[in-house]
């Protein structure tokens, strides 16, 4: 999961090649890698790739600040998604 997300951000979102290769702990927000529109692009990618829906309430800096944070957020979603699917 980490490598998929890291690859996508490195390929589609990063505009300054100087920040590459991207560490999974690099702050995407403080580094100016992620802005409002690129976050939307990332959310669209995550929703398509992992078959989830990211709600407005989940659009918090702590969920999207690093690749690791994004993966933690997605993993935390998994039980909820599975529960919803069973229901």
């Amino acid at each position, binding site marked *: 999961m980490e490598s998929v997300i890291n690859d996508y951000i490195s390929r589609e979102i990063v505009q300054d090649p100087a920040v590459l290769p991207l560490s999974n702990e690099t702050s995407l*927000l403080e580094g100016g890698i992620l802005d*409002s*529109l690129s976050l939307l692009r990332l959310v*669209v990618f995550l929703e398509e790739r992992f078959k989830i829906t990211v*709600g407005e309430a989940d*659009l918090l800096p702590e969920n999207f600040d690093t690749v690791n944070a994004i993966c933690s957020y997605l993993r935390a979603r998994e039980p909820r998604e599975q529960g919803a699917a069973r229901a």
Partner: protein
Amino acid sequence: MRLLRSVEGVAYWAVMAPVLACLPAVLGYQLACWRGDWEFRSRRVKRTALTCNLRQLLGDEIDQDDALRLARQWFRFASCEAIDVMRLRFRGRALRRLVEIRGREHLDAALAARKGAIICSAHFGSYDSAFSLLGASGLSVTTIGRWQHNYTASLSSAERRFWDLVYARRLRRHRHRPNIEPWPGRIGVAAQAAAVLRANEVVTIAIDAPPLEADWARTVKVPFLSSKARFLPGAVSLSRLTGTPVLMAFMYRSADYRHQVLEISEPVQMPPGEGEAAAFARCAAEVSAAIRRDPAHWAYWASGADLSVLGLDSPECDGAEDADKDTIFTDLGIHA
């Protein structure tokens, strides 16, 4: 003198405009025009900046007499806009019966595709009332834009509350959700707007806002009036990411000052593979065309600071900065 003008402005918005909005429209808007004429005569610095910027940016299209006529009209429109806001009381029927909406079928067709609709306008005429009017006429409307009085450093908290009460509150009540306010550090703005569009609702935005310094790197420079201007192409980016059509909308005031026509365009063509700047340039060209068609509607003629940020300022119009200090309304983004 400046204090007197501010007091007059506050009194106009707090007392006069609500009273005028309750009178028959023919009388209310006539009185608003007389107030606009008084402003035109008494605000020499602002009038000079207006005429100078009009001539600089419209080039040979107008002479000095035209510029003065347009400046007078600008002040009249500004006074009338306060009446428009006040006529949005209750369900907005008092304003709705004075506004003809043309092209509503384009909006309905866009919404039938169930991807929402992005309505792009400009700081042009009663644009804020137009957005709320669409809400009052049955659409779920959310606006991307800042309530500037909340961020203007020179305003006290009492002044902020005042502008919220007399201005923002009346517009807000016809909008489905609170404004989505773009501000550095608010990373969820575009995703919030996308959520609104996913619910098949309407997002409105004035695309000619001067970009904040933090956003300059994301701006595109496109042909605008007789020059080039720097804008944020966010509306086009949002459209691309969500597959939502962009429609242009402008509200024109008629010669009697009380009737208006809100014209909604067909969706702007955005061929796949076309660059974002090229697609946005087409939207900016629509704004340019609307301003050329009826220049007095554009709010920024009197604001040298805003024109400067847009990259449209002219050294010949050095009175413009003083005009900015002439009133707090320019700071608020209100057309007066």
